[in-house]
């Protein structure tokens, strides 16, 4: 995959394209008797946006901190741009990081925060102010440089932290759940902002989050982690459509597990189930079951039903009805029919 600008030109790309920016090889991390990361291995191509997604305690933050160099892996090796980095202290790695609580220097102004990496990396002192201004402009904080950190709003502080992490043009950008503390609207705004900046600069990025929506929205690739182990690494649409196991299916999206006699686990997404008050409303479905509405939650653009299905061992199936106008909302207690096509059923080996 060659970038468009190089196609047909006389300039030949370097030996390999794309190159691998980060390579994690059989990394284990054990501390205080806890096996936080278990034989994790993955490669990340230069310029990609990777999200490590998992519940708290899944080892995702530990893995990020190992890459940042704040901890050394118990075993295994991490390569950044081809060089083994386990013995390299964090201040000698070219990694920009945005922390969960931002960790802006409270006694400095916004501009001083952004200038700090340049000073520490001995940039030409005369060039620093212009560079700081450029990066503050990039995060849309032009003119805010003289403000102290505590004089800025939550969203503005986020932007300062991003500018500080990027101003020295690091090889790698790490995001440690920096959006977790924001309210939903600001969080979604900042997700798009991260994506815009990352595309503009083309910096390889690893983002850690427990927010499945964020992972789907911002990433080129998603790694799902659980119990210290990588469960799946795939593009967002692939992760969603073909989850590699029951955990991934359950963690991303709303999934109903259907009891299967043959030992395999079968599941179906809530939005793949159709619901109708009569059998006639489900033309084309391969499987049709009867159920009783246990609960109906009106969410505006859709109605979420919980339907008790006796033929499936009395399980509650969650169903998204995205076209509530097709029939009037079904009340709890009413008998309904659920249907789906065989191709939408996910199957997992036990």
């Amino acid at each position, binding site marked *: 995959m060659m970038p468009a600008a190089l196609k047909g030109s006389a300039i030949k790309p370097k030996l390999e394209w794309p190159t691998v920016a980060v390579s994690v090889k059989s990394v284990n991390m054990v501390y205080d008797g806890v096996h936080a990361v278990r034989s994790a291995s993955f490669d990340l191509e230069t310029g990609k946006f990777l999200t490590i997604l998992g519940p708290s305690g899944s080892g995702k933050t530990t893995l990020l901190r190992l890459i940042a160099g704040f901890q050394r892996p118990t075993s295994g090796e991490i390569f950044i741009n081809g060089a083994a980095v386990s013995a390299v202290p964090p201040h000698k790695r070219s990694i920009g990081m945005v*922390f969960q609580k931002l960790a802006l*220097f409270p006694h400095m102004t916004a501009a001083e925060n952004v200038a700090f990496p340049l000073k*520490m990396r001995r940039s030409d002192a005369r060039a620093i102010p212009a560079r700081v201004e450029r990066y503050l402009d990039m995060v849309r904080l032009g003119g805010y440089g003289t403000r102290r950190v505590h004089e800025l709003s939550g969203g503005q502080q986020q932007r300062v932290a991003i500018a500080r992490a990027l101003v020295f043009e690091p090889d790698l950008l790490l995001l440690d759940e920096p959006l977790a503390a924001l309210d939903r609207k600001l969080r979604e705004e900042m997700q798009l902002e991260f994506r815009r900046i990352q595309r503009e600069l083309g910096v390889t990025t690893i983002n850690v989050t427990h927010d499945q929506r964020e992972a789907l929205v911002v990433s080129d690739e998603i790694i799902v982690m659980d119990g210290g182990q990588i469960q799946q690494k795939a593009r967002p649409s692939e992760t969603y459509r073909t989850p590699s196991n029951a955990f991934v299916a359950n963690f991303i999206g709303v999934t109903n597990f259907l009891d299967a006699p043959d030992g395999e686990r079968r599941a179906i997404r809530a939005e793949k189930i159709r619901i109708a008050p009569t059998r006639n409303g489900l033309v084309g479905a391969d499987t049709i079951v009867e159920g009783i509405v246990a609960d109906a939650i009106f969410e505006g653009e859709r109605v979420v039903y919980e339907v008790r299905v006796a033929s499936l061992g009395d399980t509650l199936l969650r169903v998204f009805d995205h076209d509530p106008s097709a029939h009037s909302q079904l009340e709890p207690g009413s008998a309904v029919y659920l249907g789906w096509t065989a191709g939408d059923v996910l199957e997992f080996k036990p």
Partner: protein
Amino acid sequence: MTAPLSKTIVLWIFVVAVLVLLSAPTIVILGASFTSGNIITFPPEGFSLKWYEKIATSRDLWDAFLRSLYVSAICTIVAIPVGTLAGIVLAKYAIRFEKSVQIYLLLPFTIPLIGSGIGLMLIFGEARLLGQLWPVGLACCVINLPFMIWAVTASASSLDPDLELAAASCGAPPLSTFLHVTLPAVMPGVISGSLLMFILALNEFLVSLLLTDARIVTLPVQIYNSIRSIITPDLAAISVVFIACAALAIVLLDRLVGLEIFLKSK
């Protein structure tokens, strides 16, 4: 806020009573220092500044005051690096014997000063340091150091541990991280601790009494010596000078750190 009237009245009576109790000695001494009479009385007879004039022109008092400033300066200069480092270490690292260290930090409240004073007198006597002024400053530092450590620890434990990691990811080696990030972040604690150390050393009486001789008395000892002969209003005037010094320290603290932060850190 619609507390019943009786409750409000009772509350206010308590508040006023506490304020009067706390400020009574200061008000009495302040009034007494302006008397125009020759004996210390409250309320004062008339108004004059003659006792201030007297202490301002007294050679002995000036010398004692300068010696006290010298002792306080020594105490503070030693306390700043030692207390700051100790405070940061205590707050940041899970050290062994942490419980024992915490108990040690309670010593100034539990061991009577006369005990530590005599101990220090023996040590300094053995080392042939008695009769000089700087050991007095050192002694004040040893005795009051826990206050300094507390002030710094309070600042350091509210520090986000990620700050130092952030500095590292910005490319700062450990020493730069300490100088540019850790130290400025605990500065409020260092400033309040230093002012506290300075004032405590300035007011220190018992230890000075044990460690000084007649040639090098500090101001509190000088005052004590005067009381033994005759109590005159110039002592009230000196006390007012002490109060003014403490007030100055509080103003400085407010300007440099903010009193709110100082009170919260306790």
